[in-house]
C-alpha cells in the first residue's frame, strides 16, 4: 500500500545529502556518509553539544522556577521560603513565615509556576512536532485548527453556557472541558478532510486548517454578538491567556495529558528526521508515514488542547521555542523535541513572571507578554534567515 506511486528516482539531492550529514543519525538506516572517517568524531562532538544545550535549558527553566516562586506582589523573603520548605519536610527551622506567605506560596505561586512549565513545554513540543510534520519551521500547532477550535469551545461555554442550567456549578471546568473538546474536534475534522484512501495530504491539511480556522473565527464572532458585556470581557481575557487560574486541580488534569505527549514525542524523532527528507524518502527508509502523521496530529491536539483549556490562548511559544532550539542544535528531532520542551517551559516561566510583576498589583495577560516579546524575536529570525539564504 505504501509502495503505490513513487516518483522519486532514488538519487539524493545536494540538500538532502547535506541534511543527512548534519543529522549524522544512526536512526536513519543506510545514511549515505560522504565523509565516513569523520562521523564518529562529529557525532561525539555533537552529542556533547546537545548535552550542554539541554543542561543549559534545564538550568534556565530551573532559574525560572526559582524566580517565579521567589518573586511576586506579596513579598516573601528567602528565609521565609526556607522556613516553608523546612516546615513541609518536617524540619525545625529558625526562620519565620506568616500564614499568609505560606498560603501565597502553596495555593497561588507554586501551582502557577508548575502550570507555566507544563503549558510552555506542551506548546513547544507540539510546535516542534508540527514543524517536523509540515517540514516547515514556520508551522504552528494552530495550523491544524486546534487553537481555533479550543477558542470556539471556550466561547460557547462562556456565552451559551451561562444560559444553560448548572453553568453556575460547572463554570470554569465547563470552559476548560469545552475548549479541550473543541480543539480535538476541529483537529479531527481537519485530519479527516485531508485524508483520502488512507493517505493524508499534508498540504491539504494545511489548507483545510486555514478554512476550519476561519470557520471557528466566524463561530466565535457569532457568539460575541450574543455575549453581554461581562461575557465579552471574559472571552477577551481568555483569548489573551492567563496562568492566573492555576490550581492544583487544573494541574492534575494538565500534567498527565501534556506529560504523556512530552514522553511520547521523542519516540517519533527518528521518523520525523526521515520525514525531513520527504515523504517518499521516509517511506523507503521504512517509516510508516501515515501512522506517524496520525500520531503527530493526535499528540499536538491533546497537548495544545490541554494547555489551552487551562491557560487560554498563549501565542508564539509553539512557534518560537522550537525555532530558537533549531538555530542552536539543528533539525535533529532527537535533540529538538526534549530541548524544545525545556525552552518552552523556560520561556513561559519568564513570561509569566513579567506578566505578574510589571504592573503589580494588577496583572498583564500572558498572551500579551509572549506576543510582545515573541513577535520581534520571530521577525529577527525571519530577517536572519533571509540574510543567510
Amino acid at each position, binding site marked *: 500500500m505504501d509502495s503505490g506511486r513513487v516518483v522519486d528516482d532514488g538519487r539524493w539531492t545536494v540538500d538532502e545529502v547535506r541534511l543527512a550529514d548534519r543529522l549524522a543519525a544512526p536512526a536513519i538506516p543506510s545514511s549515505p556518509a560522504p565523509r565516513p572517517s569523520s562521523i564518529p568524531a562529529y557525532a561525539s562532538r555533537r552529542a556533547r553539544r546537545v548535552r550542554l544545550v539541554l543542561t543549559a535549558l534545564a538550568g534556565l527553566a530551573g532559574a525560572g522556577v526559582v524566580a517565579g516562586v521567589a518573586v*511576586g506582589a*506579596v513579598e516573601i523573603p528567602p528565609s521565609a521560603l526556607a522556613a516553608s520548605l523546612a516546615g513541609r519536610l518536617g524540619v525545625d527551622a529558625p526562620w519565620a513565615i506568616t500564614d499568609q506567605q505560606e498560603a501565597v506560596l502553596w*495555593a497561588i505561586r507554586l501551582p502557577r509556576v508548575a502550570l507555566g512549565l507544563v503549558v510552555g513545554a506542551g506548546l513547544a513540543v507540539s510546535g516542534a512536532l508540527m514543524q517536523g510534520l509540515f517540514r516547515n519551521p514556520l508551522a504552528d500547532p494552530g495550523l491544524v485548527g486546534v487553537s481555533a477550535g479550543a477558542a470556539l469551545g471556550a466561547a460557547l461555554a462562556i456565552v451559551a453556557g451561562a444560559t444553560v442550567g448548572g453553568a453556575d456549578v460547572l463554570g470554569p471546568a465547563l470552559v476548560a472541558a469545552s475548549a479541550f*473538546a473543541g480543539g480535538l474536534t476541529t483537529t479531527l475534522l481537519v485530519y479527516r478532510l485531508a485524508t483520502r484512501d488512507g493517505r493524508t495530504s499534508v498540504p491539504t491539511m494545511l489548507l483545510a486548517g486555514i478554512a476550519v480556522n476561519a470557520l471557528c473565527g466566524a463561530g466565535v464572532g457569532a457568539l460575541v454578538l450574543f455575549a453581554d458585556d461581562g461575557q465579552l470581557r471574559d472571552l477577551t481575557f481568555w483569548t489573551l491567556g492567563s496562568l492566573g*487560574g492555576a490550581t492544583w486541580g*487544573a494541574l492534575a488534569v494538565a500534567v498527565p495529558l501534556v506529560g504523556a505527549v512530552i514522553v511520547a514525542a521523542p519516540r517519533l524523532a527518528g521518523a520525523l528526521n526521515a520525514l525531513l527528507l520527504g515523504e517518499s524518502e521516509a517511506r523507503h527508509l521504512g517509516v510508516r508515514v501515515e501512522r506517524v502523521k496520525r500520531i503527530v496530529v493526535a499528540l499536538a491536539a491533546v497537548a495544545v488542547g490541554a494547555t489551552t483549556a487551562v491557560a487560554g490562548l498563549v501565542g508564539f511559544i509553539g512557534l518560537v521555542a522550537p525555532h530558537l532550539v533549531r538555530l542552536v542544535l539543528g533539525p535533529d528531532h532527537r535533540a529538538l523535541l526534549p530541548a524544545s520542551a525545556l525552552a518552552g517551559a523556560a520561556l513561559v516561566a519568564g513570561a509569566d513572571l513579567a506578566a505578574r510583576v510589571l504592573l503589580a*498589583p494588577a496583572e498583564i495577560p500572558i498572551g500579551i507578554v509572549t506576543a510582545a516579546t515573541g513577535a520581534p524575536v520571530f521577525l529577527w529570525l525571519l530577517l536572519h534567515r533571509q540574510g543567510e539564504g
Partner: protein
Amino acid sequence: MIRLLPALLVAALLTGCGGGASDAPQATADTTASSGRPGRPAPPAVDTTRTYDTTRIVTLGGPVTELAYAFGLGDNVVGTDQSSTFPEAILAKPRLGYWRATSAEGILSLEPTLVLAMEGLGPPPVQGQLEAAGVPVVVLPDAQTLDGAETRIALAARVLGRPDSGAALTQRIRTGLSRAEASHPADAPRVLFVYARGAGMVSVFGTGTAAETTLGLAGAQNAVTSFPGLRPLTAEAVAEAAPDAIVIPEKSFQSLGGIDGLLRQPGLAQTPAGRARRVIAVDDALVLGLGPRLAEGVAALQAGLR
C-alpha cells in the same frame, strides 16, 4: 479514548479543584461557606451573621466601591479595580485590574482584611485563593431590579458593619424615587438605551436589564420589548422600537464620537428620536450600576427626557 477525554477532564477538574482548596495550608475554618466550588458566578450566599474586620478593604466593581464610600468607609479602601471611578478619591488608590480578571496575589499584597466584590469576580480560582490565605471574601449579588439593588445595599451595609447607614441610604433612595415618580410624564416616552464600545460594537438594552429598571423609575419605557439582555443594534430592531428618545452612557457616547457618530449607526437617524436629535448622554455609573446614586441617576435621566 478521545471521546472519553472531555468527560475525564470535567471529572478531574471538579474533584481536583475541591482537593486543591483543602490542600491549602490555612484551612478556611473562619471564613464563610468556603467555596471549593469553581463556580462562576459564585452563588451569592453572604454570611451576615459574622462580623468582618473593615480596617483594610479591597473593593472590586464600581457599585461596590460606591457603597463602601457611601457608608463612610472610603478611607479604609486600600485598593480597587479598574471599573471603580467614583468618587474621585478612588482614582488615587492602587488598581488591581478589571474585577473579572484580577490577581489573588496582587490583592493579597495590599494586606486587606476584607475583599468586597461584585458577582463575577474572577478569574474563578481567585476567591478560593484569597480565602486560603485567610482573607474573607464577600461577593455581592448582581442587581437588575430595584429590589435587587436594595438587597445589595442591605447586604453591603451589614457586611461593612453599618446597617443603619444602609437603611438610611435605602430610605434616601426611596424618597428620591418617589419625588421622581411625582413628576413622571403622563405619557411614558419610548426610550432606546444604547451601549457602545466604538462604532463596531453598538448594542441596545432589552428586557430584564438594569438599564430598563432605571428607565422605568424615571417614568420612561424601554422601547425594546422583543428580547432580553444586551443585543447588537440592528436597523430592524431600531425600526421596530421606534424610540422617542435615545439614552446613552457618557463613555459609550464618547466612543462613538458624539451625537453625529451615534446617529450614523444603522437606522437611528430615521427614528423619531433621531429626527428630533433627542439624545441624552448620562454618566455610566449613575445609570448602569443601580448603586447608591440610583435616585440621582433617575433624576438626571428625567431631567434629560423633559
